[in-house]
């Protein structure tokens, strides 16, 4: 297996992007990534798009985007792993290089979610479970799936609504330092606690917004990467796992087994452990998801997630900086873009290019945790500054 590095990164502004269609939105990141890698786009041998689709008019978005960006006769496909589609795209581009099929590949993540109205968006997300048994008769929604976990976690471990609000406050704080984030303003615990209940006990400020956005990374083999840049960011290991489609088949609703499994595989591949990680993006589509991620990734013991956020241990300067970009919660969560966006953020952090939200980098190791659906998929990627 060949070593593979991220050698170019691009990231659009996230938010309600009614100024662009899906191809124009993807182009913003593609252009940046290619310029950052200082290559000609003809050097890219294949393009993988991560996009869940359904929210916008194009049903073959990979070829739409390739045409718009001027990729001709390039190998391509779209991958879907729900909200982990972006990481799945990066894995595909990675395997192409790691196997020797290609030397330079591009992974793009994009979603244009605001082409449909909000309740249609709620419907599209609610259908992303086991359709007949969860949606047809019971109208489950994405917040409702996570609320089932929140109630169980609160009941078992004493996690409180204030604890969830703390995660939101942290996210909005860092988003206010990230010019590409959907939300640009800080919030207070009171504001979060007093927001509208969406799926009890989860409130509006416990949930990520519906966002448009894109991100892109150029990957290269070791030989090529070393010639291209002084700051390659190495992909040290990608662990992937999954769980049942139907939530009723899960265990205790205290955490996501797919996160446990995929992170253990990633740590093993990268020969690292949670204590070595300087900075992480955790999949905080809901505030409860971030607390469960701390536990499932092994950043703390099971049940101690709330304690970690109460003590500020996941802020910049704490034990480990989590979601210094604002996270899904406040940066936004354009579904297919999220995993690639996380790779971009960790690359910036490891390159010391994160500006006002730079975390201290000691070991040079970062983590990307990207969940699809309600733990249906999980992809965990370990990145590092050196091999």
């Amino acid at each position, binding site marked *: 297996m060949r070593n593979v590095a991220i050698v170019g990164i691009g990231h659009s502004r996230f938010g309600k992007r009614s100024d662009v269609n899906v191809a124009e939105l993807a182009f913003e990141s593609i252009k940046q990534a290619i310029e950052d890698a200082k290559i000609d786009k003809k050097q890219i041998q294949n393009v993988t798009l991560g996009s869940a689709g359904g929210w916008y008019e194009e049903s073959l978005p990979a070829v739409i985007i390739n045409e718009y960006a001027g990729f001709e006769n390039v190998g391509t496909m779209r991958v879907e792993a729900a909200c982990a589609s972006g990481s799945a795209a990066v894995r595909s581009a990675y395997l192409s290089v790691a196997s020797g099929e290609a030397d330079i590949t591009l992974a793009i993540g994009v979603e244009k979610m605001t082409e449909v109205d909000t309740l249609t968006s709620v419907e599209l997300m609610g259908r992303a479970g086991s359709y007949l048994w969860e949606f047809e008769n019971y109208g489950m929604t994405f917040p409702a799936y996570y609320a089932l976990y929140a*109630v169980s976690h609160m009941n078992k471990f004493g996690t409180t609504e204030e604890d969830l609000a703390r995660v939101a406050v942290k996210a909005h704080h860092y988003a206010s330092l990230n010019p590409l984030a959907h939300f640009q303003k800080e919030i207070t615990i009171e504001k979060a606690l007093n927001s509208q*209940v969406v799926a009890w006990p989860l409130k509006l400020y416990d949930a990520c917004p519906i966002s448009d956005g894109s991100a892109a990374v150029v990957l290269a083999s070791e030989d090529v990467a070393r010639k291209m840049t002084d700051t390659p960011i190495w992909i040290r290991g990608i662990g992937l796992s999954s769980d049942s489609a139907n939530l009723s088949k899960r265990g205790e609703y205290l955490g996501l087994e797919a996160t446990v499994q995929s992170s253990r595989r990633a740590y093993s591949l990268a020969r690292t452990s949670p204590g070595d990680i300087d900075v992480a993006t955790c999949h905080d589509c809901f505030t409860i998801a971030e607390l469960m991620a701390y536990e499932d990734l092994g950043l703390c013991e099971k049940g101690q997630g709330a304690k970690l956020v109460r003590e500020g241990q996941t802020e910049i300067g704490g034990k480990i900086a989590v979601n210094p970009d604002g996270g899904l919660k406040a940066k936004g969560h354009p579904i297919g873009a999220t995993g690639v966006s996380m790779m971009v953020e960790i690359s910036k952090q490891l390159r010391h290019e994160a500006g006002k939200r730079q975390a201290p980098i000691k070991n040079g190791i970062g983590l990307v945790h990207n969940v699809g659906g309600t733990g249906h998929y999980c992809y965990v990627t370990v990145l590092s500054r050196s091999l």
Partner: protein
Amino acid sequence: MSNEDSLPSRRTLSLRFNIAISKTKEFWAALREGKLITTKCTSCGKVTFPPQADCPNCMSSGHEWIDLGTDAVLVTFTNVQITPTSFVNHDPYIVGIGRLADGPNVLAWVEGATVEQLRPGDRLRLEARVSPEGNPYYVFVKN
């Protein structure tokens, strides 16, 4: 065009699926008669809910139908306040996951209690219902 910056499509994509239930029609027929049953693999004994004709454990397709049972314990729950387009005329509904005495978990609406009155561990009873459109479904009722 209502707005120069966007073009509302003139074409609506309407998808209404005709879901195949041939291999589990016994479940729906029994439900319509008020009974809750599910599948048990005749090779390895695995009980599955939702019912499935092929065994996820040993991949054998031999199965028998057994009573699912109706006594359950509430594992977790939520109250869906913001409902999707196709449930837009519904009042908020409580959804819970109950663990049946005989094993499998079931996700369904919970009736007979407000969200404030519910706690994990509450005893529930699984009951058959028929929707206003004539579709059979099942709910938990708090004892």
